């Protein structure tokens, strides 16, 4: 485990990750907010920390920024250890959750703030020029003289971005930057952030509890729980190959059928549920192997379930279970059914529009058959 990234850095500059955590632990009192974390963020990546509140993602971000110092372990930025280095000496910048714009300064003064702290200080005209360029970058031309409180939420967000980006930091940190925006604006900003990141080529590190946000923007997502990293990977990896029920549950929606592992066969598992039915599923890539006799769940994504009439005749599936429709929600491009399956609990099914069009919809209360193919079912530990 012990290696020295700065030596590596000298060996080949290109391979040095922008951010690297080695055995980082942060304790507040007796509580470990971050517990022995190793990770690295490649240069130019859009990297997200995802997890529920209190999982340690914000603390990790704050250790990169320098607001917190690790209790144990080492944080490297650009191959250099930054432990003990205060925030103002780190070449990273942050976009704060509530933006933290300076209320007593106008927009231009906010954006130029970082430049003004430089020694030697750039000339007034130089600062003004860079501020104008950055305003343009975030599409706020001409807003320089506005007071920050006169700006809308989305505009404030851009000012905060501009204030950080103007410094061309090694890494831009974003702490739940979209949390304060309404749904529609959030969607727009997600796209905008992604585009911006590609344009400026700076590494972005985002903290969010919103899986949709993380999935849609990031190259790499690090899912955390109780201070530890659960899984790191691309959005697709996480969705298709979650290493645990926790990840599958957090990334997208999933149905779980619990039971005991009764058979293990070359990466495929058989799990006996409470109803006595035996389901099989594949183990996930990168997940620890399940043990026979242990507890596990079969995970099936709702969009991969088929739904058909109670006689079960018209669906093509390896496994079929019976249930009764409890609730139905029409969502436009698909219909969402909540089906009560005796002994297995509630199962969520997403039925696409084109199929509904052909087959017709099921009314609440109707008895139905649910089915899936064995090769899409995953067997996951907790």
């Amino acid at each position: 485990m012990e290696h020295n990234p700065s030596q590596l850095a000298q060996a080949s500059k290109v391979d040095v990750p922008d951010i690297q955590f080695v055995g980082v632990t942060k304790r507040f009192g007796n509580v470990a907010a971050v517990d022995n974390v190793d990770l690295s963020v490649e240069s130019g990546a859009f990297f997200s920390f995802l997890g529920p509140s209190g999982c340690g993602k914000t603390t990790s971000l704050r250790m990169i920024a320098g607001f917190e110092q690790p209790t144990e372990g080492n944080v490297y930025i650009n191959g250099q250890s930054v432990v003990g280095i205060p925030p103002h000496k780190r070449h990273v910048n942050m976009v704060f959750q509530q933006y933290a714009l300076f209320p007593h300064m106008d927009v231009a003064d906010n954006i130029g703030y970082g430049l003004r702290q430089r020694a030697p200080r750039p000339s007034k005209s130089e600062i003004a020029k860079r501020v104008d360029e950055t305003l343009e970058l975030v599409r706020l031309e001409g807003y320089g003289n506005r007071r920050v409180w006169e700006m809308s939420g989305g505009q404030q967000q851009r000012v905060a971005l501009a204030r950080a980006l103007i410094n061309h930091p090694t890494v831009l940190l974003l702490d739940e930057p979209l949390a304060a925006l309404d749904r529609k604006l959030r969607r727009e900003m997600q796209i905008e952030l992604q585009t911006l990141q590609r344009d400026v080529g700076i590494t972005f590190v985002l903290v969010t509890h919103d899986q949709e946000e993380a999935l849609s923007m990031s190259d790499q997502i690090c899912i955390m729980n109780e201070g530890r990293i659960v899984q790191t990977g691309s959005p697709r990896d996480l969705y298709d190959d979650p290493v645990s029920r926790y990840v599958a549950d957090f990334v997208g929606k999933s149905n779980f059928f619990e039971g005991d592992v009764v058979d293990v066969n070359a990466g495929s598992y058989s799990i006996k549920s409470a109803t006595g039915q035996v389901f099989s599923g594949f183990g996930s890539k990168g997940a620890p192997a399940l043990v026979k006799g242990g507890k596990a769940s079969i995970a099936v994504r709702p969009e991969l379930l088929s739904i058909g009439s109670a006689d079960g005749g018209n669906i093509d599936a390896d496994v079929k279970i019976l249930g009764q429709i409890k609730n139905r929600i029409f969502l436009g491009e698909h219909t969402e059914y909540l089906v009560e399956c005796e002994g297995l609990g509630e199962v969520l099914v997403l039925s696409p529009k084109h199929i509904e069009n052909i087959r017709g919809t099921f009314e609440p209360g109707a008895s139905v058959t649910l089915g899936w193919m064995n090769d899409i079912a995953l067997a996951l530990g907790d």
Partner: protein
Amino acid sequence: MRLYSIAVYLFLYIPIGIIVLFSFNSGRHASDFQGLSTMWYGKALSNPFVMESLVTSLIIAFAAATLSSLTGTAAALALQRMRGPMRVLFDGLIYISITIPGIVIGITTLVALVTAFDIVNPILADMWPEGVKPPKLSLGYASVIAAHTLFTMSLVIVLVRARIAGMDRALIEASTDLYATPWRTFYQITLPQIFPAIMAGFLLSFTFSFDDFIISFFVAGPNTTLPIYVFSSIRRGITPEVNAIGTIVLAFSLILLVTAQFLLRARNERK
């Protein structure tokens, strides 16, 4: 509701009206209205004692307000980062110095200072070389300012601390994140943020000190503040001069307010 409010404003302003009206009284006694005249303004303004006591009050109020703004702000900044028994001790002292009546501050300060001077002055006299007049500690500007500052400093601490507590900590983090050193963060971000509270503290302290009678009465030593002058004039037959002084002070405060408003507006327009 509206009528009620008008009645309350009348209640607040009738005495003021009376003061102003009587200041134009040409008679010798405040409550004997004998005709309009501005003679008492002339008398008040040319009365060196009125002017001296006004200047004394201004000096004391300004010094107390400045001192308490500085020490109070410093203490509020320090206390905000402090925990444990020392914090509890300071909280207690602040609480007590705000709670105890001015009259008790005046008396305790008088008693303690007089006792202290009785001990220190002979020692000073002994220490000084023969033939040179030894310095002698006594009541005066320093003692009033110090006594006023005890109360006003705690006032500033409470005000500034509330402001710091209400301040977004992220602003400070944002500043350090943007390469500002702790000192630059302090004067570029923290100070402007808490400045309204410091200013409010300064003004409150100034007002308190300027209007204080009872503490000054005990510890002002040879100095006569305006309230002391007014008090002693009132006790043995008030003349319209006192009303004229009151009106002048009121007018002066109003002019200050309007000027401040004007300057603020000018600054905002520039922005």
